[in-house]
Protein backbone atom coordinates (compact mmCIF):
# COMPACT_ATOMS: atom_id res chain seq x y z
CA UNK A 1 0.00 0.00 0.00
CA UNK A 2 3.01 2.26 -0.13
CA UNK A 3 1.86 3.84 -3.36
CA UNK A 4 -0.79 5.71 -1.37
CA UNK A 5 1.84 7.80 0.38
CA UNK A 6 4.95 7.69 -1.77
CA UNK A 7 5.13 9.76 -4.98
CA UNK A 8 7.60 7.46 -6.75
CA UNK A 9 5.68 4.29 -5.96
CA UNK A 10 2.51 6.11 -6.95
CA UNK A 11 3.99 6.95 -10.33
CA UNK A 12 4.92 3.32 -10.93
CA UNK A 13 1.53 1.96 -9.97
CA UNK A 14 -0.28 4.75 -11.79
CA UNK A 15 1.44 3.82 -15.06
CA UNK A 16 0.11 0.29 -14.64
CA UNK A 17 -3.43 1.03 -13.62
CA UNK A 18 -4.23 4.18 -15.53
CA UNK A 19 -5.27 2.52 -18.78
CA UNK A 20 -7.39 -0.19 -17.13
CA UNK A 21 -9.12 2.46 -15.05
CA UNK A 22 -9.75 4.59 -18.11
CA UNK A 23 -11.22 1.65 -20.02
CA UNK A 24 -13.22 0.56 -17.00
CA UNK A 25 -14.61 4.05 -16.56
CA UNK A 26 -15.66 4.27 -20.22
CA UNK A 27 -17.31 0.83 -20.09
CA UNK A 28 -19.04 1.52 -16.79
CA UNK A 29 -20.18 4.94 -17.94
CA UNK A 30 -21.63 3.55 -21.17
CA UNK A 31 -23.30 0.72 -19.28
CA UNK A 32 -24.59 3.11 -16.66
CA UNK A 33 -26.01 5.48 -19.26
CA UNK A 34 -27.67 2.55 -21.02
CA UNK A 35 -29.26 1.43 -17.78
CA UNK A 36 -30.14 4.92 -16.67
CA UNK A 37 -31.63 6.14 -19.93
CA UNK A 38 -33.30 3.03 -21.35
CA UNK A 39 -33.49 0.06 -19.02
CA UNK A 40 -34.66 1.70 -15.81
CA UNK A 41 -38.36 2.41 -15.36
CA UNK A 42 -39.97 5.80 -15.14
CA UNK A 43 -41.00 7.02 -11.75
CA UNK A 44 -44.77 6.94 -11.36
CA UNK A 45 -44.73 10.45 -9.95
CA UNK A 46 -41.81 12.14 -11.59
CA UNK A 47 -41.80 10.47 -14.99
CA UNK A 48 -38.62 10.66 -16.96
CA UNK A 49 -37.03 13.40 -14.87
CA UNK A 50 -36.13 10.83 -12.25
CA UNK A 51 -33.24 9.88 -14.50
CA UNK A 52 -31.43 13.04 -13.40
CA UNK A 53 -30.96 11.19 -10.15
CA UNK A 54 -28.38 8.93 -11.78
CA UNK A 55 -26.10 11.93 -12.23
CA UNK A 56 -27.17 13.87 -9.20
CA UNK A 57 -26.79 11.30 -6.45
CA UNK A 58 -23.39 9.86 -7.46
CA UNK A 59 -21.88 13.33 -7.76
CA UNK A 60 -23.28 14.28 -4.35
CA UNK A 61 -21.78 11.16 -2.78
CA UNK A 62 -18.47 11.69 -4.47
CA UNK A 63 -18.24 15.36 -3.49
CA UNK A 64 -18.46 14.28 0.13
CA UNK A 65 -16.15 11.33 -0.38
CA UNK A 66 -13.53 13.56 -1.96
CA UNK A 67 -13.64 15.91 1.01
CA UNK A 68 -13.35 13.02 3.44
CA UNK A 69 -10.32 11.61 1.63
CA UNK A 70 -8.77 15.07 1.49
CA UNK A 71 -9.14 15.48 5.24
CA UNK A 72 -7.57 12.05 5.78
CA UNK A 73 -4.64 13.05 3.62
CA UNK A 74 -4.38 16.38 5.45
CA UNK A 75 -4.09 14.55 8.75
CA UNK A 76 -1.48 12.26 7.23
CA UNK A 77 0.45 15.20 5.82
CA UNK A 78 0.38 17.32 8.97
CA UNK A 79 0.72 14.66 11.62
CA UNK A 80 2.95 12.11 9.94
CA UNK A 81 4.81 14.50 7.65
CA UNK A 82 3.85 12.76 4.44
CA UNK A 83 4.27 15.32 1.66
CA UNK A 84 2.18 13.20 -0.70
CA UNK A 85 -0.85 14.46 1.23
CA UNK A 86 -0.17 18.01 0.04
CA UNK A 87 0.22 16.83 -3.54
CA UNK A 88 -3.07 14.98 -3.25
CA UNK A 89 -4.88 18.00 -1.78
CA UNK A 90 -3.69 20.35 -4.49
CA UNK A 91 -4.53 17.92 -7.25
CA UNK A 92 -7.91 16.72 -6.07
CA UNK A 93 -9.62 19.88 -4.77
CA UNK A 94 -10.82 21.01 -8.24
CA UNK A 95 -12.23 17.53 -8.90
CA UNK A 96 -14.27 17.71 -5.72
CA UNK A 97 -15.42 21.19 -6.70
CA UNK A 98 -16.55 19.93 -10.11
CA UNK A 99 -18.48 17.03 -8.53
CA UNK A 100 -20.20 19.48 -6.20
CA UNK A 101 -20.98 21.80 -9.08
CA UNK A 102 -22.45 18.92 -11.12
CA UNK A 103 -24.52 18.01 -8.08
CA UNK A 104 -25.85 21.55 -7.71
CA UNK A 105 -26.57 22.05 -11.42
CA UNK A 106 -28.26 18.68 -11.89
CA UNK A 107 -30.17 19.30 -8.69
CA UNK A 108 -31.57 22.56 -9.92
CA UNK A 109 -32.35 21.04 -13.33
CA UNK A 110 -34.24 18.38 -11.43
CA UNK A 111 -35.90 20.94 -9.22
CA UNK A 112 -37.31 23.08 -12.03
CA UNK A 113 -39.84 20.52 -13.34
CA UNK A 114 -40.50 19.09 -9.87
CA UNK A 115 -40.85 22.18 -7.68
CA UNK A 116 -41.27 24.77 -10.40
CA UNK A 117 -38.19 26.68 -9.34
CA UNK A 118 -34.46 26.38 -9.93
CA UNK A 119 -33.47 26.86 -6.33
CA UNK A 120 -35.11 26.09 -3.03
CA UNK A 121 -33.61 26.98 0.35
CA UNK A 122 -33.75 23.38 1.33
CA UNK A 123 -31.33 22.10 3.95
CA UNK A 124 -29.46 19.77 1.63
CA UNK A 125 -29.16 22.24 -1.21
CA UNK A 126 -27.89 24.90 1.14
CA UNK A 127 -25.28 22.68 2.74
CA UNK A 128 -24.08 21.45 -0.65
CA UNK A 129 -23.78 25.07 -1.79
CA UNK A 130 -21.69 25.79 1.31
CA UNK A 131 -19.53 22.75 0.55
CA UNK A 132 -19.02 24.15 -2.94
CA UNK A 133 -17.90 27.49 -1.54
CA UNK A 134 -15.48 25.71 0.79
CA UNK A 135 -14.02 23.86 -2.20
CA UNK A 136 -13.68 27.20 -3.99
CA UNK A 137 -11.88 28.69 -1.00
CA UNK A 138 -9.45 25.76 -1.06
CA UNK A 139 -8.77 26.33 -4.78
CA UNK A 140 -8.33 30.09 -4.29
CA UNK A 141 -5.97 29.47 -1.39
CA UNK A 142 -3.95 27.23 -3.64
CA UNK A 143 -3.75 30.05 -6.15
CA UNK A 144 -3.02 32.99 -3.90
CA UNK A 145 0.00 32.02 -1.80
CA UNK A 146 3.46 32.76 -3.13
CA UNK A 147 5.29 30.38 -0.84
CA UNK A 148 4.65 26.71 -1.57
CA UNK A 149 5.43 25.33 1.89
CA UNK A 150 3.13 27.80 3.61
CA UNK A 151 0.44 27.31 1.01
CA UNK A 152 0.17 23.56 1.23
CA UNK A 153 0.25 23.46 5.02
CA UNK A 154 -2.26 26.27 5.39
CA UNK A 155 -4.58 24.53 2.93
CA UNK A 156 -4.27 21.30 4.92
CA UNK A 157 -5.09 23.15 8.14
CA UNK A 158 -8.04 24.80 6.44
CA UNK A 159 -9.34 21.44 5.22
CA UNK A 160 -9.13 20.02 8.74
CA UNK A 161 -10.82 23.03 10.32
CA UNK A 162 -13.46 22.72 7.62
CA UNK A 163 -13.97 19.04 8.34
CA UNK A 164 -14.70 19.92 11.95
CA UNK A 165 -16.98 22.75 10.93
CA UNK A 166 -18.88 21.06 8.11
CA UNK A 167 -20.94 18.77 10.39
CA UNK A 168 -21.79 21.77 12.56
CA UNK A 169 -22.83 23.74 9.49
CA UNK A 170 -24.87 20.81 8.20
CA UNK A 171 -26.59 20.40 11.56
CA UNK A 172 -27.34 24.10 11.86
CA UNK A 173 -28.72 24.30 8.34
CA UNK A 174 -30.94 21.29 9.01
CA UNK A 175 -32.21 22.92 12.17
CA UNK A 176 -32.75 26.22 10.40
CA UNK A 177 -34.66 24.43 7.67
CA UNK A 178 -37.02 22.61 10.00
CA UNK A 179 -37.57 25.91 11.76
CA UNK A 180 -38.75 27.63 8.61
CA UNK A 181 -40.49 24.59 7.07
CA UNK A 182 -40.52 25.09 3.32
CA UNK A 183 -43.51 23.49 1.62
CA UNK A 184 -41.45 21.34 -0.71
CA UNK A 185 -39.50 19.38 1.85
CA UNK A 186 -41.58 16.21 1.46
CA UNK A 187 -40.42 15.78 -2.13
CA UNK A 188 -36.86 15.31 -1.00
CA UNK A 189 -37.56 12.99 1.89
CA UNK A 190 -35.81 9.68 1.52
CA UNK A 191 -37.78 7.41 -0.77
CA UNK A 192 -37.31 3.67 -0.50
CA UNK A 193 -35.56 2.93 -3.73
CA UNK A 194 -36.59 0.17 -6.09
CA UNK A 195 -33.95 -2.41 -7.09
CA UNK A 196 -34.49 -1.60 -10.77
CA UNK A 197 -33.36 1.92 -9.98
CA UNK A 198 -30.68 0.89 -7.52
CA UNK A 199 -28.66 -1.08 -10.11
CA UNK A 200 -28.10 1.85 -12.50
CA UNK A 201 -27.43 4.12 -9.53
CA UNK A 202 -24.66 1.86 -8.28
CA UNK A 203 -23.20 1.44 -11.77
CA UNK A 204 -23.23 5.20 -12.30
CA UNK A 205 -21.61 5.77 -8.93
CA UNK A 206 -18.85 3.33 -9.82
CA UNK A 207 -18.45 4.98 -13.22
CA UNK A 208 -18.19 8.42 -11.64
CA UNK A 209 -15.68 7.06 -9.17
CA UNK A 210 -13.53 5.63 -11.95
CA UNK A 211 -13.68 8.87 -13.94
CA UNK A 212 -12.73 10.82 -10.86
CA UNK A 213 -9.92 8.38 -10.14
CA UNK A 214 -8.57 8.60 -13.70
CA UNK A 215 -8.57 12.41 -13.65
CA UNK A 216 -7.01 12.53 -10.20
CA UNK A 217 -4.24 10.14 -11.30
CA UNK A 218 -3.47 12.47 -14.18
CA UNK A 219 -3.57 15.54 -11.96
CA UNK A 220 -1.46 13.98 -9.22
CA UNK A 221 1.15 12.93 -11.77
CA UNK A 222 1.26 16.46 -13.19
CA UNK A 223 1.59 17.86 -9.69
CA UNK A 224 4.48 15.49 -8.88
CA UNK A 225 6.30 16.43 -12.08
CA UNK A 226 5.78 20.16 -11.59
CA UNK A 227 7.06 19.89 -8.03
CA UNK A 228 10.14 18.03 -9.15
CA UNK A 229 10.96 20.68 -11.71
CA UNK A 230 10.03 23.40 -9.20
CA UNK A 231 7.51 25.06 -11.47
CA UNK A 232 5.00 25.81 -8.76
Amino acid at each position, binding site marked *: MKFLVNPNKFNEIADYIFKPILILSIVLFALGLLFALYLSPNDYQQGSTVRIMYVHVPSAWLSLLTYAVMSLYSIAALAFRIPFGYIFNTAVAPIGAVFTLICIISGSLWGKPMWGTWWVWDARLTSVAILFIIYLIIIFMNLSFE*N*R*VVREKVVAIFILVGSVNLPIIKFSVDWWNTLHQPATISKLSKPSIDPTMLTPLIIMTLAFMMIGLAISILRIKTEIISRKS*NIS
Partner: protein
Amino acid sequence: MIIVKDLSVERQDKKIFENINLSLVPGNIAILKGKNGSGKTTLLKALLNIIEPSVGSIYWKGKLLKKNLYDFYNHVTFIADTTSSLKKLTIKDNINIWKRFFMSNINNTQIETALKTLKLDNYLDKKVGTLSFGEIKKLEFLRLIIENKKVWILDEPLSNLDDDTIELMKQTFEDHCAKEGSIIFSSHQNPGIYVSEEIHL
Protein backbone atom coordinates in the same frame (compact mmCIF):
# COMPACT_ATOMS: atom_id res chain seq x y z
CA MET B 1 27.22 28.47 25.74
CA ILE B 2 25.86 28.04 22.24
CA ILE B 3 27.29 25.20 20.20
CA VAL B 4 26.17 24.56 16.66
CA LYS B 5 27.07 21.28 15.02
CA ASP B 6 26.87 20.56 11.29
CA LEU B 7 23.82 22.71 10.77
CA SER B 8 22.12 22.52 7.37
CA VAL B 9 18.86 24.11 6.35
CA GLU B 10 16.70 23.19 3.38
CA ARG B 11 13.76 25.26 2.19
CA GLN B 12 11.45 23.95 -0.48
CA ASP B 13 13.93 21.19 -1.36
CA LYS B 14 16.64 23.78 -1.93
CA LYS B 15 19.77 23.79 0.20
CA ILE B 16 20.37 27.19 1.73
CA PHE B 17 23.53 26.40 3.65
CA GLU B 18 25.36 23.33 4.83
CA ASN B 19 27.59 22.22 7.67
CA ILE B 20 27.74 25.32 9.78
CA ASN B 21 29.79 24.89 12.93
CA LEU B 22 29.97 27.46 15.65
CA SER B 23 30.74 27.63 19.30
CA LEU B 24 30.17 30.75 21.27
CA VAL B 25 31.39 31.30 24.81
CA PRO B 26 30.57 34.27 27.04
CA GLY B 27 32.49 37.36 26.05
CA ASN B 28 32.80 36.48 22.40
CA ILE B 29 31.42 37.94 19.21
CA ALA B 30 30.53 35.89 16.17
CA ILE B 31 29.82 37.42 12.79
CA LEU B 32 27.98 35.97 9.83
CA LYS B 33 29.17 37.26 6.51
CA GLY B 34 27.59 36.73 3.16
CA LYS B 35 25.96 38.32 0.19
CA ASN B 36 22.30 39.22 0.02
CA GLY B 37 20.18 36.09 -0.11
CA SER B 38 22.94 33.82 1.16
CA GLY B 39 20.86 32.77 4.16
CA LYS B 40 22.15 34.95 6.99
CA THR B 41 18.69 35.64 8.35
CA THR B 42 17.78 31.99 7.92
CA LEU B 43 20.73 30.91 10.01
CA LEU B 44 19.85 33.38 12.75
CA LYS B 45 16.28 32.10 12.74
CA ALA B 46 17.55 28.53 12.92
CA LEU B 47 19.63 29.53 15.95
CA LEU B 48 16.44 30.80 17.57
CA ASN B 49 14.63 27.54 16.78
CA ILE B 50 12.12 29.35 14.59
CA ILE B 51 13.22 27.38 11.56
CA GLU B 52 13.84 23.70 11.95
CA PRO B 53 17.19 22.61 10.56
CA SER B 54 17.15 19.61 8.26
CA VAL B 55 20.42 18.24 9.62
CA GLY B 56 22.48 19.12 12.65
CA SER B 57 21.84 20.24 16.16
CA ILE B 58 22.16 23.27 18.39
CA TYR B 59 23.07 23.09 22.06
CA TRP B 60 22.40 25.63 24.75
CA LYS B 61 24.24 25.22 28.04
CA GLY B 62 25.09 21.65 27.14
CA LYS B 63 21.51 20.61 26.44
CA LEU B 64 19.73 20.35 23.14
CA LEU B 65 18.18 23.71 22.35
CA LYS B 66 14.74 22.21 21.78
CA LYS B 67 14.66 20.71 25.26
CA ASN B 68 15.88 23.91 26.83
CA LEU B 69 14.03 26.39 24.69
CA TYR B 70 12.38 28.75 27.14
CA ASP B 71 15.48 28.99 29.27
CA PHE B 72 17.31 30.02 26.12
CA TYR B 73 14.64 32.57 25.28
CA ASN B 74 15.10 34.02 28.78
CA HIS B 75 18.68 34.81 27.93
CA VAL B 76 18.45 36.08 24.39
CA THR B 77 17.51 39.30 22.66
CA PHE B 78 16.82 39.12 18.96
CA ILE B 79 16.64 42.18 16.77
CA ALA B 80 15.42 41.43 13.28
CA ASP B 81 15.72 43.61 10.22
CA THR B 82 12.22 44.86 10.98
CA THR B 83 11.57 47.40 13.71
CA SER B 84 9.22 46.28 16.41
CA SER B 85 8.42 49.67 17.90
CA LEU B 86 4.76 50.62 17.57
CA LYS B 87 4.49 53.36 14.97
CA LYS B 88 1.34 54.93 16.34
CA LEU B 89 2.75 55.49 19.83
CA THR B 90 5.33 57.94 21.15
CA ILE B 91 8.86 56.91 22.04
CA LYS B 92 7.98 57.25 25.72
CA ASP B 93 5.02 54.88 25.42
CA ASN B 94 7.12 52.39 23.51
CA ILE B 95 9.80 52.42 26.18
CA ASN B 96 7.18 52.01 28.90
CA ILE B 97 5.62 49.05 27.11
CA TRP B 98 8.98 47.41 26.57
CA LYS B 99 10.05 47.98 30.15
CA ARG B 100 6.97 46.25 31.49
CA PHE B 101 6.67 43.58 28.86
CA PHE B 102 10.24 42.43 29.27
CA MET B 103 10.14 42.68 33.09
CA SER B 104 13.11 44.97 32.90
CA ASN B 105 15.12 45.76 36.02
CA ILE B 106 16.74 48.75 34.37
CA ASN B 107 16.21 52.05 36.12
CA ASN B 108 15.17 55.26 34.43
CA THR B 109 18.54 57.01 34.60
CA GLN B 110 20.16 54.23 32.62
CA ILE B 111 17.50 54.55 29.94
CA GLU B 112 17.89 58.31 29.91
CA THR B 113 21.64 58.09 29.39
CA ALA B 114 21.10 55.55 26.65
CA LEU B 115 18.58 57.85 24.99
CA LYS B 116 21.02 60.71 25.27
CA THR B 117 23.85 58.77 23.68
CA LEU B 118 21.50 57.70 20.90
CA LYS B 119 20.44 61.38 20.54
CA LEU B 120 16.79 60.51 20.89
CA ASP B 121 16.13 62.38 24.13
CA ASN B 122 14.58 65.38 22.39
CA TYR B 123 11.91 63.36 20.62
CA LEU B 124 10.41 61.59 23.62
CA ASP B 125 6.88 62.78 22.90
CA LYS B 126 7.05 62.33 19.17
CA LYS B 127 5.24 59.48 17.50
CA VAL B 128 7.57 56.81 16.23
CA GLY B 129 5.94 56.91 12.81
CA THR B 130 7.19 60.46 12.28
CA LEU B 131 10.84 59.61 12.93
CA SER B 132 13.31 58.83 10.19
CA PHE B 133 14.25 55.25 9.41
CA GLY B 134 17.66 55.55 11.05
CA GLU B 135 16.15 56.95 14.20
CA ILE B 136 13.61 54.13 14.39
CA LYS B 137 16.43 51.68 14.03
CA LYS B 138 18.37 53.39 16.80
CA LEU B 139 15.29 53.21 19.00
CA GLU B 140 15.17 49.48 18.33
CA PHE B 141 18.64 49.11 19.84
CA LEU B 142 17.28 50.51 23.06
CA ARG B 143 15.66 47.09 23.47
CA LEU B 144 19.13 45.64 23.97
CA ILE B 145 19.57 47.86 27.01
CA ILE B 146 16.04 47.36 28.31
CA GLU B 147 15.91 43.59 27.94
CA ASN B 148 19.37 43.33 29.56
CA LYS B 149 20.08 39.77 28.48
CA LYS B 150 23.23 37.78 27.98
CA VAL B 151 23.06 36.76 24.33
CA TRP B 152 22.37 39.23 21.57
CA ILE B 153 21.37 37.97 18.17
CA LEU B 154 21.25 40.81 15.68
CA ASP B 155 20.30 40.82 12.03
CA GLU B 156 22.22 43.46 10.04
CA PRO B 157 22.64 45.85 12.96
CA LEU B 158 25.12 48.13 11.25
CA SER B 159 23.34 48.82 7.99
CA ASN B 160 21.50 52.10 7.44
CA LEU B 161 23.26 53.82 10.32
CA ASP B 162 25.49 56.91 10.25
CA ASP B 163 29.14 56.69 11.20
CA ASP B 164 28.66 58.07 14.70
CA THR B 165 26.07 55.47 15.55
CA ILE B 166 28.18 52.68 14.09
CA GLU B 167 31.01 53.75 16.37
CA LEU B 168 28.56 53.82 19.26
CA MET B 169 27.33 50.33 18.43
CA LYS B 170 30.87 48.99 18.34
CA GLN B 171 31.49 50.53 21.73
CA THR B 172 28.31 48.96 23.05
CA PHE B 173 29.35 45.59 21.66
CA GLU B 174 32.67 45.75 23.40
CA ASP B 175 31.09 46.81 26.68
CA HIS B 176 28.67 43.92 26.43
CA CYS B 177 31.49 41.48 25.82
CA ALA B 178 33.36 42.84 28.79
CA LYS B 179 30.30 42.00 30.87
CA GLU B 180 30.51 38.32 29.82
CA GLY B 181 27.79 38.72 27.22
CA SER B 182 28.00 37.24 23.76
CA ILE B 183 26.85 38.53 20.42
CA ILE B 184 26.03 36.95 17.09
CA PHE B 185 25.35 39.34 14.29
CA SER B 186 25.16 39.32 10.54
CA SER B 187 26.68 41.90 8.27
CA HIS B 188 27.55 42.26 4.63
CA GLN B 189 30.22 44.84 5.28
CA ASN B 190 33.36 44.69 7.38
CA PRO B 191 32.48 45.82 10.86
CA GLY B 192 35.97 46.67 11.98
CA ILE B 193 35.78 45.16 15.42
CA TYR B 194 37.51 42.16 16.84
CA VAL B 195 35.43 39.02 16.33
CA SER B 196 36.34 35.61 17.61
CA GLU B 197 34.28 33.60 15.14
CA GLU B 198 33.64 34.30 11.51
CA ILE B 199 31.19 32.35 9.39
CA HIS B 200 31.08 32.81 5.66
CA LEU B 201 27.87 31.85 3.94
